């Protein structure tokens, strides 16, 4: 009893996502260092440690401190593994009080993104061998994920293929590109991203290089290209690969609603739902001064993946919330029967205060990922990135000087783009299927 009351006081009146508004505003204003300070000021309990490290890693990445970002990710990765294991006491706490008592180990797709971000950091530092290590870890992690769980396999394997090809490991590149193509095609309708066209060129090129003639013929038929097309756009040239992170992932908020329990009673529960944050920059063009240009292609939609994952988890979340409500009701009834009305009232109030939804998610992930690939003859270039919104209006321009391109290799550039309009929450079609909705905020 005392425990419940104490916990009610400790939890305070805010859910996790209520507290990060200031950090989001600073990210959107292009001040990741200040956002990092704001993140540090938030109280970080052991349960939220992973989320703190993941957000810190993204903020350091945006600030350009790639080694620092990797250090945070290296701390987060073993913790994510540790918290993936069920804790007996935390489950008991979750069933008695609320889900926030469980340590947050990250959704499956967030665990893969920890590796993806580490790979992006190493790419930005130009350390291909270290990126390769992350690619192997990513591959291992993807095989551990249970089937039918939303995971960024398409983007992860596509990135792996690019890195293997850049290191001259053609067989591994072929396997990775194939895996990427299969993954993109197998994405469920809920969050489909079509296979990027550049992936088609990659499959043709690597199949031709490796003399996999049957496969090459099959790809030519499927992609409807000419008979002698072997995707050889890169003969004698190098390539600049620009990876653009746009916007911010959706934010989980809380909704108070009524659900019918197994015995037919209506119980009040707090459930999480996602608020969309539509990225502004959705078109990007990379060009060399006075030379060729390439458009960015969408390779990942984190928002849809997050939604799909929440939908998959929802039955378990609702079941736990209903179970909690039933337990709390029983406790109230018990104290009332014992004649202790004041205690019953206290438990009732404590129960209401502690019924909070778990709104923890890695919200500083980008909302969408784009890749622009520009083949260039060997030489030194100045490149320009033009970022546009969906209507084609120019949002901004960034320049990269002294980009050296060598024949047969890829030069990677990692860029992020968040503007203030990206953190404005929008209503979403996706809500948990419930009756009697009353919004708390």
């Amino acid at each position, binding site marked *: 009893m005392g425990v419940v009351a104490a916990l009610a006081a400790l939890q305070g009146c805010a859910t996790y996502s209520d507290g990060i508004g200031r950090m989001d505003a600073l990210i959107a204003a292009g001040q990741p260092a200040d956002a990092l300070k704001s993140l540090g000021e938030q109280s970080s309990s052991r349960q939220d440690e992973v989320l703190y490290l993941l957000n810190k890693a993204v903020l350091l990445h945006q600030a350009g401190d790639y080694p620092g970002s990797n250090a945070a990710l290296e701390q987060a990765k073993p913790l994510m593994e540790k918290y993936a294991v069920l804790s007996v*006491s935390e489950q008991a706490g979750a069933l008695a009080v609320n889900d926030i008592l469980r340590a947050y180990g990250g959704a499956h797709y967030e665990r893969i993104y920890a590796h993806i971000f580490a790979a992006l950091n190493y790419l930005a530092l130009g350390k291909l061998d270290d990126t390769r290590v992350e690619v192997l870890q990513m591959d291992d992690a993807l095989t551990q994920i249970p089937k039918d769980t939303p995971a960024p396999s398409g983007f992860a394997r596509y990135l792996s293929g690019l890195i293997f090809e850049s290191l001259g490991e053609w067989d591994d590149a072929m396997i990775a590109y194939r895996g990427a193509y299969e993954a993109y095609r197998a994405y469920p309708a809920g969050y489909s991203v079509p296979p990027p066209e550049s992936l088609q060129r990659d499959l043709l090129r690597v199949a031709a290089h490796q003399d996999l003639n049957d496969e090459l013929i099959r790809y030519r038929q499927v992609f409807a290209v000419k008979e002698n097309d072997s995707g050889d756009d890169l003969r004698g040239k190098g390539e600049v690969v620009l990876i653009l992170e746009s916007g911010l992932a959706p934010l989980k908020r809380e909704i108070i609603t009524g659900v019918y329990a197994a015995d037919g009673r209506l119980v009040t529960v707090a459930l999480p739902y996602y608020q969309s944050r539509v990225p502004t920059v959705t078109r990007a063009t990379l060009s060399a001064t006075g030379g060729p240009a390439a458009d960015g292609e969408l390779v990942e939609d984190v928002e849809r993946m997050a939604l799909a994952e929440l939908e998959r988890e929802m039955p378990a979340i609702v079941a736990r919330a209903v179970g909690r409500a039933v337990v709390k009701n029983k406790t109230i009834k018990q104290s009332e029967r014992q004649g202790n009305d004041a205690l019953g009232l206290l438990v009732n109030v404590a129960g209401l205060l502690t019924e909070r939804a778990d709104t923890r998610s890695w919200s500083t992930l980008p909302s969408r990922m784009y890749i622009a690939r520009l083949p260039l003859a060997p030489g030194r270039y100045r490149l320009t990135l033009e970022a546009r919104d969906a209507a084609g209006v120019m949002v901004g321009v960034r320049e990269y000087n002294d980009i050296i391109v060598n024949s047969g290799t890829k030069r990677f550039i990692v860029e992020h783009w968040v503007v203030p309009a990206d953190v404005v929450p929008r209503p979403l079609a996706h809500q948990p299927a419930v009756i009697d909705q009353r919004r708390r905020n």
Partner: protein
Amino acid sequence: MITVLKRLGLLLMMGVVLTACATKVERMSPDEVKDISGRWNDTDSRLVSEEMIDDVLARTWLGEFTGQRKRDPAVIVGEIRNLSHEHINMQTFVSDMERVLINSGKVVFVASSEERKDVRQERGDQDLNASDDTRNAMGQERGADFMLKGTISTILDTEGKKQVRFYQIDLNLISLADNRKVWVGQKKIKKYVTGPSVRP
């Protein structure tokens, strides 16, 4: 009687809780083996370097070289690529090998390409600033006779909480005179790691 027992039990529990709350530090000998997470650790680095260097020094190439050239061979450490699943600290591994090789007295070590940059800068500075009798002239470096290169690879076999981690370290000693590989060494390490299925 029962209250006394209850008090005793409470004190005992508090004692247990309090000891669990304090940080404990235990000094260990650097040679002691303690595997905690199953990842590459200092024991692996030490085992590999000791075994492989013992192997390389015991082979015929050394006798042939000293017989022909009448001096100890100079070895330089080239690139040892990390092709594994882990961010292994290659520097400690290379340092371990260098230490064992130099201390054996049979082989001369020369600075690797990164280390040379600083040394050459210092020598260039001495050229300008040091007095004639204490100056070390440029162009007097000892050229290496052999280069040590290698790779570390891993194979992981994972099922649920169980994992078999297999490390293979391959090293080659390549003659800089004629590109011959005079020695090829290989060491395998295999670990079986079981993760916890529940946490407290």
